[in-house]
C-alpha cells in the first residue's frame, strides 16, 4: 500500500510542476537565482543518488561489483558512448564481476 501512496504522490507532484511551467505568467519564475537553483538542484540530487545506488545496500555502505560496473559506465561516458551503451556497460561489467565471484 505504501508503494501506491508513493506512486500517487509522485504522479500528482510531477504532473503539477510540468503544468505550472506551462500556465504561470511569463517571467514569474525568471528570477536569476530561482533559475540557477533549479538548474543546480538536479546536479545535487543525481550525484547523491548515483553514489548511494552504487555504494549502498540495505542502509549500509558497501563496496561490490556495482562499483566496477558504474566505473565502466563512467569510462563509456568519457568516450562519448550513446546512452544505451553506457547503461549496458554498467550491467555487463557488474554481471561479469559477479559471475567471476567478485
Amino acid at each position: 500500500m505504501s508503494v501506491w501512496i508513493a506512486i500517487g504522490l509522485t504522479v500528482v507532484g510531477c504532473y503539477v510542476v510540468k503544468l505550472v511551467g506551462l500556465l504561470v505568467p511569463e517571467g514569474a519564475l525568471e528570477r536569476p537565482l530561482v533559475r540557477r537553483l533549479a538548474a543546480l538542484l538536479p546536479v545535487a540530487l543525481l550525484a547523491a543518488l548515483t553514489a548511494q545506488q552504487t555504494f549502498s545496500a540495505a542502509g549500509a555502505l558497501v563496496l561490490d561489483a556495482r562499483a566496477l560496473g558504474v566505473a565502466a559506465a563512467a569510462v563509456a561516458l568519457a568516450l562519448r558512448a550513446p546512452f544505451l551503451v553506457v547503461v549496458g556497460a554498467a550491467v555487463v561489467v557488474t554481471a561479469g564481476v559477479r559471475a567471476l565471484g567478485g
Partner: protein
Amino acid sequence: MAEQTAPPVIRESTKADSAVVRDALGVGIAVGLSGFAFGVTSAGSGLSLLQTCALSLLVFTGASQFALVGALAAGGNPFTAAAGAFFLGTRNAFYGLRLSQLLALPRAVRPFAAQWVIDETTAVALAQPTRRAARIGFSVTGLTLYVLWNLTTLLGALGAEAIGDTDAWGLDAAGPAVFLALLAPMLKTATERYTAGIAVVLGLGLLPVLPAGVPVLVAALAAPAVLWARGRHMAGGNVGTGGAGGSGGSGGTDGTDGSGKGDVR
C-alpha cells in the same frame, strides 16, 4: 532512383518538416528504448508490473521514476521517496516556462501537452528555428518517447520477472549508470562540480545514520549552499585572486542557461 538530392538551398529559418521529424524520431527512439532499463530496475526493486507501468504512464519523467523505485527499494518511506522524485521533477517547470512562450499553445491544450514536458522534448523544441518546427519537434518527440518508453517499460518488467534474480545479471547497476549518464553533461563548471561533490559526501555520509530517503533530500541542500557560497565569494572577492573567482563568474552564466536544452536526460 539516381536523382540527386536537391541542393540544400532551404535556409535554416525554414527547416523542412521532414528534417524536424527525423531529428525528433532519433531522440525519441534512442531514449524511448531506455524504458527497458527502467522496467527491469523497477521490477527488480520489488514493484509489481502494474506499479511499474503506472509510473511510466503517469509520471513519465525518467530520473524521477528511477529515484522513486531506488528509494523504495532502499526501504524509504513513501513520503521521503516521493519528495526526492518530486524535487528531481521540478526542473520540468522551467522547461514548461520556455516551451509555453515558444509553442504558444492554446490554454485548453496545455493540460494535455504538460505530460510531455521533459528534458528531451524541450531539447528538441528549443533547437528548432521556427514555431512550426518547434511544435512538430515537440509533438513527434513526445509521442515517440511516450509510446516507446511505456512499451519498453512493460517489456523490461516482464523480462525481469522472467529471469528472477536481476542482481545476478548486474541489472542493479542500471539505475546508478542512468543517473551518471544524466549527471555528466550537467557538470559544466566548477559550480556544478562542487555541488555534485558535496552532494556525494552528504548522501553517503548520512546514509548509515538517517532513515532511507532522507540523506538524498539533505544532499539536495548542496545546491543552495554552493549558490550562497558563490554569491558571497563574488560579492566579497572582487579582487580576482585565484582562478576560483573567475570560474565562479562563468559558472553563473552557465547556471542560468543550464535549465535549457543542455540538460538532455
